[in-house]
C-alpha cells in the first residue's frame, strides 16, 4: 500500500509522453533503434544518414539484457519485451556512467516500432517507459513508428519527420537486407573456404550502406514513392553485390537438413543470445537454415484481404477506391521484392503467397485472429511441407507469448493431420539454452535422415555418383559458385535438388564415371528416369 500524500487535487500515475524532439536538435541528437539483425540495422542506418539523421543501432542483444529487463519491468513479460527493454536499459546505463544523465537524455532518442496489437507488442513502449522510470530517466525520449503508415508527419517537435523518404528508405533497407540474408544462409553451410561468406557479406552490407546513404533526393511525397518504385538504383546495386558473391566457391554435395525457422517475429528474426544463437547452432549441426525475412511480415501487414479488419473504422470517403488502392499496393510490393530478387539471380526465396498461407491455415487457425504472426505460423509450416521447402520447421516461441502459445496449440491439430511434418516448437526463455537446443536436436536427427534419404534417392534416380559430379564440377566450375542457381526440383534438400538439376539441365550422365560397373548401372537408371 502506498502512502497517502495531501494533494491539491487528485493526481496520479500518468502515461509516458516524450518531451519534444525539435528540428533544431537534430544535429545534436542520435536516434537509437534496434530489434532486427545487424544487416538490417546497418542498411537502415544508411537510409537514416541519408536524411541527415544521426542514427545508431543498439548493441546486439546479450544474455545480461534479460536480467536488466527483468529488474525494471513488471514480472511475467514475454522474453522479447524483456530482452529489448534490457538492451535499452544497459545501453543507457553505460552511457549515463560515462556522460551523466543530462547528457544522455539530451543526446539520444529511441525509435521503436509500434503496433495496434492485442498482444504485448502494442504495449512494448509501456515497458520501456516503466524501465525509464526505474532508471530515473523519465526525460529520455522514445517515439513510436507505426508499421502501416508511410507518412506519419513530424513526431513531437519536428525533430523526427516520419515521411515518405524515411519510411521508404527503411522499407527498402529491410527488403535488401532480407535478400542478402537469404543469400548468406544458403551459402555459408556450403562454403569451401571457411569465413569467406562472412567476409563477402560484410563487404556487401557496407557497399549497400553507402548505396542507401547516397540515395538521391526525390522530394518528400509521391516523387519519392515513384522513384523508389521505378528506379533501377537498388537493383543495380544488388547486381553489384551479386558479383561479389560469384567468387565464393561452394560444395553443394554436402547433405544438410534444411530447417525453416519460424516463430514469434522478434525471436525468429533475431541473431544472437536472445534466441540462443539458434540459427548458428543449426548450421553447426549440419543444417541449412531458411531464415525468416522481415518482408513476409510487412506483406502480411499490408495484405488488404487479410488485414481488412484493420480498416473497419476507416473514415475513407471512397472505401472501394481505398480497397483498390490497397490491392494495387500489395501487388506493387510483391513486384518490387521480385525485381530485387531478380537482381540477385532469383537466388533468394520468393515471398509466399499470403492467400495461400491463409487457405492452408484456415482449417486450423482463422486468418483474422490477431496478435503475433497470427495464422502465418501454421500457414508457413504447411507451405514448407506441401512445397517441400524444408525438411523441418523450427518454431521459436517466446516464453509467455500470448499468440504464439495459441498457434502452437493449434499445431497439434496440424500434426495430427500431417504426422510426417517435422515440427520443433522451441520455447525460449532466454536462460535455458541446453533444454531448448536438445529438444531441437531430437527432431533435427530425423530431418538429417530425411535429407540423406532424399540425396540417395536423387542419386538413384539419376544414376549419378558423387565422383561423376565432382568430375563435372572440375570441368564446369561455375556450378560451384555461390550464385549459381539450383532450382527447386521437388526435394527439400539442396544436395538432392543439385543432383537432379545436374542430370536434368546440365545433361550430366553417369557415363562420365571411370568405373564401368557404375556406369552401366547408372545408365540404366538414368534411361528410366530421363
Amino acid at each position, binding site marked *: 500500500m502506498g502512502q497517502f500524500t495531501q*494533494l491539491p487535487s487528485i493526481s496520479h500515475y500518468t502515461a509516458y509522453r516524450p518531451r519534444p524532439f525539435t528540428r533544431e536538435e537534430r544535429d545534436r541528437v542520435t536516434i537509437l533503434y534496434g530489434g532486427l539483425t545487424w544487416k538490417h540495422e546497418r542498411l537502415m542506418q544508411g537510409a537514416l544518414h541519408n536524411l541527415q539523421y544521426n542514427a545508431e543501432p543498439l548493441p546486439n542483444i546479450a544474455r545480461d539484457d534479460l536480467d536488466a529487463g527483468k529488474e525494471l519491468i513488471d514480472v511475467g513479460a514475454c522474453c522479447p519485451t524483456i530482452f529489448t527493454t534490457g538492451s535499452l536499459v544497459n545501453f543507457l546505463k553505460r552511457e549515463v556512467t560515462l556522460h551523466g544523465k543530462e547528457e544522455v537524455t539530451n543526446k539520444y532518442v529511441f525509435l521503436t516500432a509500434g503496433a495496434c*496489437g492485442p498482444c504485448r507488442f502494442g504495449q512494448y*513502449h509501456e515497458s520501456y517507459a516503466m524501465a525509464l522510470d526505474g532508471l530515473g530517466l523519465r526525460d529520455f525520449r522514445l517515439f513510436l513508428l507505426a508499421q502501416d503508415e508511410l507518412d506519419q508527419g513530424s513526431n513531437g517537435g519536428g525533430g523526427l519527420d516520419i515521411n515518405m523518404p524515411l519510411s521508404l528508405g527503411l522499407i527498402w533497407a529491410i527488403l535488401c537486407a532480407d535478400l542478402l540474408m537469404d543469400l548468406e544462409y544458403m551459402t555459408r553451410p556450403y562454403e569451401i573456404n571457411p569465413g569467406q561468406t562472412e567476409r563477402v557479406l560484410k563487404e556487401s552490407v557496407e557497399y549497400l550502406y553507402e548505396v542507401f546513404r547516397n540515395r538521391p533526393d526525390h522530394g518528400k511525397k509521391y516523387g519519392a514513392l515513384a522513384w523508389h518504385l521505378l528506379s533501377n538504383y537498388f537493383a543495380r546495386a544488388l547486381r553489384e553485390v551479386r558479383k561479389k558473391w560469384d567468387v565464393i566457391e561452394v560444395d553443394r554435395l554436402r547433405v544438410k537438413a534444411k530447417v525453416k525457422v519460424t516463430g514469434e517475429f522478434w525471436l525468429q528474426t533475431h541473431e544472437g543470445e536472445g534466441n540462443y544463437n539458434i540459427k548458428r547452432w543449426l548450421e553447426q549441426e549440419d543444417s541449412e537454415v531458411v531464415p525468416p525475412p522481415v518482408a513476409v511480415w510487412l506483406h502480411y501487414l499490408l495484405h488488404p484481404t487479410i488485414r481488412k*479488419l484493420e480498416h*473497419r473504422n476507416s473514415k475513407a470517403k471512397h472505401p472501394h477506391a481505398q480497397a483498390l488502392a490497397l490491392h494495387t499496393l500489395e501487388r506493387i510490393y510483391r513486384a518490387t521484392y521480385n525485381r530485387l530478387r531478380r537482381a540477385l539471380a532469383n537466388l533468394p526465396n520468393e515471398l509466399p503467397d499470403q492467400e495461400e498461407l491463409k487457405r492452408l491455415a484456415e482449417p486450423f487457425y482463422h486468418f*483474422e485472429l490477431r496478435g503475433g504472426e497470427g495464422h502465418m505460423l501454421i500457414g508457413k509450416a504447411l507451405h514448407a511441407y506441401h512445397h517441400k521447402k524444408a525438411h523441418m520447421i523450427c518454431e521459436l516461441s517466446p516464453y*509467455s507469448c500470448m499468440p504464439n502459445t495459441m498457434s*502452437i496449440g493449434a499445431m497439434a491439430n496440424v500434426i*495430427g493431420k500431417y504426422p510426417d511434418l517435422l515440427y520443433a516448437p522451441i520455447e525460449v526463455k532466454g536462460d535455458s539454452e541446453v533444454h531448448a537446443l536438445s529438444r531441437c536436436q531430437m527432431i533435427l536427427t530425423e530431418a538429417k535422415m530425411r535429407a540423406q534419404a532424399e540425396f540417395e534417392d536423387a542419386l538413384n534416380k539419376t544414376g549419378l555418383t558423387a565422383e561423376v559430379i565432382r568430375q563435372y564440377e572440375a570441368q564446369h566450375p561455375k556450378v560451384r559458385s555461390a550464385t549459381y542457381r539450383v532450382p527447386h526440383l521437388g526435394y527439400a534438400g539442396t544436395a538432392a535438388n543439385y543432383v537432379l538439376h545436374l542430370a536434368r539441365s546440365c545433361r550430366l550422365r553417369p557415363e562420365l564415371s571411370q568405373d564401368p560397373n557404375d556406369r552401366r548401372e547408372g545408365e540404366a537408371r538414368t534411361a528410366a528416369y530421363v
Partner: protein
Amino acid sequence: MPIPILQTWFAKKHSAAPPIKDRSQLRVGIPKVLNIWSTHQFWVGFLKALGISPENIIFSSDTSEEQGREFGKGRGTVDCCYPVKCMSGHYGELIFGQKKKINILLSPMIHSLPSILHGHVVDTVTCTRVMAGPENIKAGFMKENDVFVENGIVYASPFVSLGDRQLVSGQLYTSLKDILNLDPDETERAVQAGYQALENFTTRARQRSREILAWCAQNQKPCILVLARPYHMDTGIGHEIEAELQAHGYPILWLQYLPGDADLMNWLFAEDMRKGRIKTPFDISDVWTSSYSSNTNEIMWGAKVAARCPWITCVIRLSSYECGMDQPTYTPTQKIVEATGTLFFKFGDLDSTKPAGSIKIRVETIVHYLAKYSGSIIGRKLSWLSADCPLPRTSRERTPTRAMADEARAAEPKQLVVLH
C-alpha cells in the same frame, strides 16, 4: 460439417411453401469461458431469436479442477494461462457430460467487445488468447480423431467482432448459415435481439451497482471494487476471493458493471476535465496510450474510478498466472489507485488450485485495513470532490443485501438463462 440430424431437419422439402425452420429441438452448448462471461446475454438473445428454446441453451459449469480432470484430461495442447487451459474441461463437459446430448458446440472467437469506453479509446479488441483460444482448444479434440463428429456434434466457432456492430450480422451469417440454416435477414434480427438482451442486462447490472454506491453514500459505508477480467467471476478462476470479503459485510462491485451514468462520472472526473487532462470521464489517454485491448482499457478506467470514488475504499486486483495482458498494467493500476490512499491488494498468479490458506490470511488483513481506514479514506476523497454529489441523500434506494450484491456480481450465465 453438418451432422446428419441437422441435415434431416433442414433438408429442402419438395413443397412450394418455404420450409419452417423449427430449431426448438436443437441443443446448443456454450463453453462458459473467457469473454462469454461478459457477452453471454448476447448469445442467449441471439439463439432465442432464432427459435432455440432457452432450456436448450446449455452453458458449461463453473470451472473446477474436477471438471478438468474428468472431461479435459489429455486434451491440452500447450501450457498457458488457466482461463484458456481450463477450456478443455468445458468443451469435454459439454461433449461427454450431458444427459441429453447437445447438437452444436458454439465457441465463438470473440475479436472485439462492446465496451463502456467505446469511442473514447483506440480500440476494444480482446486478448489474442481470448480470440484464438477456441482454435487452440479444438485442436485437442481433433488431433487424433474428430471427437465432435464421433459424438454427433457440430463444432461452430464463428469469428465475431462484437465491438463492431456493423460487422456482426455478416460474420455470424457467414459462419453459421450452413449449421443453422440461416438467412441474412433473420440473422440480422437475431443479432439485434442479442444486442438488446445484452444491453438490458448490462443496464440492470450497472443500476444495481449504482444502488450499492448510493447505499454506501447514504450510510458513509465502504465498498470494494474488483478489478479483474470478466472471467474472474468464474468461481474456479477467481476463486471467490471477493465472496470471502463480502462475507465480512463489504458490498462488492465488479469493474464490468460500474455505473457509467453521466451525473456520477462528471462529478468524479470534473476536475480532470476542467484541467484538460482528459476529454470525457471515459477517456483514459492520461494513463494508457496503448488503448487497444477492451478489458485492459476497462481495468485502467476502473482504477481511475476507484481512485476517485469516495466509497470505493479498497480495490482487489485479480490476475491469472501468466497473463500477458495484465502484466504491463500491474504497476500503473496500483499507482493510480494508491495515489488517493485507496487500499489496493493484488491476488496475482491465480491458477487452477485455490490458494485457500493465503486467501484466508490476506482477507483478514484486508478486512482489518478496511475497518481501520475506510472512514478516513471516504472523508479524504470527498474533500477533493465538489459538494454536488449526485447520489441521493435520503434513504430512497434499497439497502444492499447479499442477494443484491450477488446480482451486481453479474450472476453466472447459467443462472441468467433460468431467468429468461
